[in-house]
């Protein structure tokens, strides 16, 4: 710690509602949280970015479809292409698929109901900046809250994700019908991660579970941005 505090940004769109939780988790992990307003033209020099959950732009048209064209997304796409660590949670995952930073799409849950629950998930591939402190096979209970969490991609893409070890998180008891029980994936460069479950809502033991904090601690220990 000391002088070299790592700054991690959280994008805020109209309708984001997990931005405060993400900022809180980042602070608890020992980094400096930085709000990135949707109309910001740059990322304020942060070293990692979280795209939080919520209902950006009211989920109008499709979840994430409008947020994807917000002003802050241009520098974010550039940052991601250059290998910068980006984490999308829930609506953030939806935004990142709409922006083509992650493949596939999140469809309506097969049972047509909003899921607000806890999901037991298993870490599959942990070689991403956001999961490096976990071991493959680690199990964790994380909050889930979504209407469109049903991960879908064509067969070829799914095969690629599986073969290249890009499935990061899998449900033990699938709550939404996602292909291969997928709960989280990473990009080809492994720096962009999308998760449907909410680690930021599980980052303080006072609230029942605190192990989600390791997601944010992982990015701090990630070699590229270690202070």
């Amino acid at each position, binding site marked *: 710690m000391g002088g070299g505090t790592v700054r991690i940004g959280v994008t805020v769109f109209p309708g984001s509602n997990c931005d405060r939780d993400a900022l809180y988790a980042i602070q608890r992990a020992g980094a400096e949280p930085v709000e990135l307003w949707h109309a910001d033209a740059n990322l304020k020099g942060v070293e990692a970015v979280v795209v939080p959950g919520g209902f950006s732009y009211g989920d109008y*048209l499709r979840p994430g479809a409008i947020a994807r*064209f917000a002003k802050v997304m241009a520098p974010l796409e550039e940052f991601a292409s250059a290998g910068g660590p980006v984490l999308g949670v829930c609506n953030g995952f939806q935004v990142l*698929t709409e922006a083509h930073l992650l493949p596939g799409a999140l469809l309506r849950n097969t*049972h047509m109901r909003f899921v607000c629950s806890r999901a037991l998930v298993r870490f599959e591939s942990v070689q991403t900046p956001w999961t490096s402190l976990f071991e493959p096979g680690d199990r964790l209970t994380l909050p889930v809250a979504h209407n469109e969490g049903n991960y879908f991609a064509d067969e070829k893409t799914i095969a690629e994700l599986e073969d290249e070890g890009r499935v990061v998180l899998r449900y033990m008891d699938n709550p939404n*019908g996602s292909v291969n029980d997928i709960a989280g994936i990473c990009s080809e460069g492994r720096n962009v991660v999308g998760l449907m479950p909410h680690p930021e809502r599980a980052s303080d033991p006072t609230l029942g579970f605190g192990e989600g904090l390791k997601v944010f601690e992982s990015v701090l220990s990630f070699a590229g941005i270690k202070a």
Partner: protein
Amino acid sequence: MADTLKIRVLVRPKSGILDPQGEAVRRALPALGFEGVKTVHIGRLVEMEVESADEIEGMCRRLLANPTIEEYEWEVVR
């Protein structure tokens, strides 16, 4: 004032993509006494007034539809 064209864009789930909305409606119809409904697919209708139809294709591809999961068609109305 430039002429206005009315455009109608139809967006729907690609064939083979799960359509839970359509499926829920298909299952609900017999409950109201409507028999013999084999399939229901639900899409989205977008009506626009534009000065030119030149850019409609791009609008569909980049925003109105998500080509990963949806297909679209559009027409000039009238």
